[in-house]
């Protein structure tokens, strides 16, 4: 991102925000952190560590007949074709869904981040799909996209294009799931970006305007650098969420056709809770494996890809 390297003043404000402060003020931090820390530790960290422990056990959901399995579950994982397939499907989904949502959201945010009635209306409308449950949205789209009964295929038929089995064709199914995910999620990112953009001091933009910079250039050179932490947040969290994609696949395709949309979480759910014998130990080991994938990708994103100057993102 060469254009971003040339950023001036605005970013400096964020960069200098964190400097060494006197020791006496450090204990304040713990007051701010304590409630969250306790809750996360008890209700998230304990189950999380439990699932790590479970991955080393031979154990089903009934938790009878527990025995120590060592690395058996992980050895099985390496030889499991479906884990490989699900890994590729998951990465494919994230590789499509994250850029699709970010690019669309940035483009739209650049157009609707003004404080007038029309822009507020647009932002509200874009946001609507996001507040609907994924279950509901998936049901709506699977009816609309059905090649035999759906309104969309009726339309394409009338136009002489024939019916397209969006969720039936192994090559089309995943891109279709991505498109629906994007449709549902981009409006939320628009809102976040807008909230950040609207906080950009107008003086910065006006100065650039006086210099004769066009709207696109101003957006890239002034706005983007100032809202960079928000962009990074959106990219990182969208990536983490995308790598755990489940609901839409679970309802719309059940992992099919021919396993082309079976993601890692879908496979974890299948092994652990849907298909007897419910192998909680093995499912947990796949979850640990997914955890490692997400952690590495997040680390790389934050450390190398999204890093700008000295800022820790």
């Amino acid at each position: 991102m060469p254009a971003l390297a040339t950023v001036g003043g605005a970013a400096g404000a964020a960069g200098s925000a964190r400097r060494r402060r006197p020791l006496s003020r450090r204990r304040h931090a713990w007051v701010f952190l304590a409630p969250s820390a306790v809750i996360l530790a008890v209700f998230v960290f304990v189950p999380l560590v439990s699932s790590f422990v479970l991955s080393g056990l031979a154990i089903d959901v009934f938790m009878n007949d527990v025995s120590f399995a060592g690395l058996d579950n992980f050895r099985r994982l390496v030889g499991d074709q479906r884990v490989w397939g699900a890994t590729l499907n998951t990465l494919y989904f994230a590789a499509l869904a994250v850029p699709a949502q970010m690019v669309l959201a940035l483009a739209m945010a650049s157009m609707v981040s003004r404080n007038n009635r029309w822009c507020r209306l647009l932002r509200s409308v874009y946001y609507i799909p996001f507040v609907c449950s994924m279950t509901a949205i998936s049901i709506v789209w699977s009816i609309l996209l059905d090649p035999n009964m759906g309104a969309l295929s009726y339309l394409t038929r009338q136009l002489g294009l024939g019916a397209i089995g969006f969720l039936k064709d192994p090559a089309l199914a995943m891109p279709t799931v991505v498109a629906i995910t994007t449709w549902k999620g981009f409006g939320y990112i628009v809102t976040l970006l807008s909230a950040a953009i609207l906080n950009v001091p107008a003086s910065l933009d006006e100065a650039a305007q006086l210099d004769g910079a066009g709207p696109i250039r101003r957006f890239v050179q002034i706005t983007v650098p100032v809202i960079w932490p928000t962009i990074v947040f959106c990219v990182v969290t969208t990536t983490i969420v995308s790598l755990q994609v489940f609901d839409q696949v679970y309802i719309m395709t059940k992992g099919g056709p021919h396993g082309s949309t079976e993601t890692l979480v879908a496979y974890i759910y299948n092994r652990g809770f849907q298909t007897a014998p419910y192998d909680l130990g093995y499912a947990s080991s796949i979850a640990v494996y997914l955890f490692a994938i997400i952690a590495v990708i997040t680390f790389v994103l934050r450390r190398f890809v999204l890093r700008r100057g000295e800022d820790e993102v």
Partner: protein
Amino acid sequence: MGGRKTITPGGVVAIVISALVMLAVLAPLLWLFVSSFKSDKEVIAYPPTLLPQDWTLDQFEAVNHSLPIAKMFRNSLIFAGGVTVISLLLDSMAGYAFARLDFKHKKLWFAVVLLTMMVPFQILMTPLYIEEHYMGLLDTFVGLILPRATSAYGIYMMRSFFVRLPVSLEESGRLDGLSEFGIFRRIMLPQCLPALVALGVFHFMNNWNDLLYPLMLTSSTEMRTFSAGLAMLVGNKVIKFGPTLAATLISILPVLVLYMFGQRYFREGIASTGMKE
């Protein structure tokens, strides 16, 4: 961004594109809206009809007949509302600490917080169920709300907003003799009002729509949320689309209203920024 001035060609393109995107977003939702007023026969008719031939409230009556809507709404409201209010406070406090305060191993702790987002929650449900059993929290609102009362997502989000604010703001508060918490509450937090609203809607809708989590942690119909009701309508073997669509529509409305309401605060948040600059 520039103010409202003469409309440029670029501005026209922007308006056209953003309006087209709006249509693409709305079309399926309008279909949902219209279809929930169709009869059983018409919902699945082929060729599909655009508008209902006879507008009917049958589907809503069917939903009303099958589900204790009022009770489920109340439960959803307590659960999702409780989580939203508490987590907004806790998330922004923790996010503030990570963004603007110093403490030992800050980067490490932040990484630890992020790690909690990386395990699919489906796999955490069974341990959480057992844990809540031992703590005696199963089937209580406390047991539903507490585990969600803060989240790595919210902390991270608030941090990303706090981190952008100029140091001058903070220092002016310090000169006024405000305490660290006073600076947070009176100066820094109002700056992030739009973010708070967005996060609030996020938490609310996430919990409002969640199925597995409230279903696992409650054991009586008295405690069931609306999303569980929606799942009850979708048949075990044969899906009945009419009531499902109607219930979907009902479930969306409260979150939508909340968002429309929240929109006003975006403006106010921005207005306050304007004064400070």
